[in-house]
């Protein structure tokens, strides 16, 4: 029970990595308030965790709307008393587009949700933590494309590099208040978006050839590092990003791919 008695906000908690972390946080003894724009999914996760004996609430939260963000944090404080942990995870990936064809609206939308959204939630939560004197832990969701890039995702790549910079700036700004700020940078993780790509065998092989450990990650593979960063065991870490990427960032060329993993 490594998060015993801790109180956490999680954005993007309705599915994928956010949902896996909500489940893991509760299993480790934390109480959580989930935010998402996916209302059905968010409510379902909160219900699942409550039925399993945990304390979990869902509050609608569109991170592009500062009113909703402030309401989300306030509702979290109402439900939990104080906030020790923020998993600042809401974000979108967007479709791949040729760089020369990318529209301004597309680019703006991704930066608005992924960067401005993260900034709004982090600022609102940070203000609460500082006001209450809480030495909290904030974990932002980056990506392996916080370090690498894809040519058809200029906005997404920019946003995740931006998350890395935001993480460092926040770490420095909040250090005097004892608040740590780190990020997790997942590699290729099995989510609804990824699975659409992996139906194509050629695409699947190409992805696997760039994963030394030889398999696509599960959302639970990201939850382990997030729990570590949320817990006191990382209390001398701030401004850092941990990459659960199956070894991709260390890899120069490609790995051999003999067979595709069984479904």
């Amino acid at each position, binding site marked *: 029970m490594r998060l015993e008695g801790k109180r956490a906000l999680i954005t993007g908690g309705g599915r994928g990595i956010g949902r896996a972390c909500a489940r893991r946080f509760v299993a480790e003894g934390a109480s959580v308030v989930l935010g998402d724009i996916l209302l059905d999914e968010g409510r379902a996760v909160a219900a699942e965790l409550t039925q399993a004996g945990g304390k979990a609430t869902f509050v609608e939260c569109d991170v592009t709307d500062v009113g909703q963000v402030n309401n989300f944090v306030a509702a979290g404080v109402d439900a939990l008393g104080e906030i020790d942990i923020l998993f600042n995870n809401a974000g979108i990936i967007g479709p791949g587009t040729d760089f020369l064809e990318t529209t301004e609206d597309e680019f703006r939308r991704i930066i608005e949700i992924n960067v401005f959204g993260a900034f709004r939630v982090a600022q609102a939560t940070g203000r609460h933590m500082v006001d209450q004197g809480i030495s909290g832990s904030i974990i932002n969701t980056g990506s392996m494309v916080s370090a690498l890039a894809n040519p058809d995702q200029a906005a997404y790549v920019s946003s995740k590099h931006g998350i890395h910079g935001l993480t*460092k*700036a926040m*770490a*420095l700004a909040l*250090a*005097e208040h*004892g608040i*740590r700020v780190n990020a997790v940078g997942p*590699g290729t993780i099995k989510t609804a978006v990824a699975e659409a790509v992996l139906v194509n065998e050629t695409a699947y092989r190409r992805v696997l050839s760039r994963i*030394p*450990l*030889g398999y696509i*990650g599960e959302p639970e*593979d*990201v939850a*382990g*590092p997030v*729990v*570590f960063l949320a*817990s*006191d*065991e*990382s*209390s*001398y*870490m*701030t*401004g*850092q990003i*941990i*990459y*659960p*990427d*199956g*070894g991709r*960032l*260390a*890899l*120069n060329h490609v*790995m051999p791919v003999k067979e595709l993993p069984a479904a």
Partner: protein
Amino acid sequence: MRLEGKVAIVTGAGRGIGRGCAKRFAAEGAAVVAADVYDEGGVEVAAEIESEGGRAIFAHCDISDSVQAAALVQTAVDTYGGLDVSLNCAGIIPIDGSDVLETEEVEWDRVIGVNLKGTFLICQAAAREMTKKGTGSIINIASVTALMAIGNQAAYVASKAGVNGLTKSMAIGLAHRGVRVNAIGPGSIETDMMAVILTDEEATARVMARTPLNRMGQPEDIAGTALFLASDDSSYITGQTIYVEGGRLALNHTMPPKG
């Protein structure tokens, strides 16, 4: 008890970071082979662990000697039946350092021989055993100086940057054989080794001005990270160095002085 039933080697276990990690691993249920060239410290930590209800033995090991490195792994297998985790904290730093124009070849060879070659020898010996079962976690100790250098420890800094490269290469080489290899990059951790650099209050103030969290790290801070890398919580992480340095790597200038 996150390492219940696991067997771990910890080199450099006689003091400092290695000692803190050996104790934490044992507290989490691992059987620990505590290795060092500093026999007094190694014997003491093993006895302490046993007296606290854990399992540990001491084994003398100079990691820069390939025969001793292989023998250490064999000791783990003979005593506890296998090897799941190898945490390589053994390392040296020349007292006072040396001006880069004065650094002697013999000092260079010695520091590289222990810190880089020794790490390689232990990693290789451990991996040879772990690949038999197809599972294991190897953790090396690099340093924040691998990325941000100090000017009077050329061999030490080079050895730690080398540990980063070794970690990545071995991670790739072993990725299809079930063994993960990662490293920890400590910042300024309060140990005897750190005392070599922090010779006075002015030096300490200078270091704190470059440490956003405004405190020295403790061996326990590194132990928590080592535990993460030894456990299944990091099962999708390999070839990484995790920096535990109180925020220094993010910092452009200096922090305002604290009262």
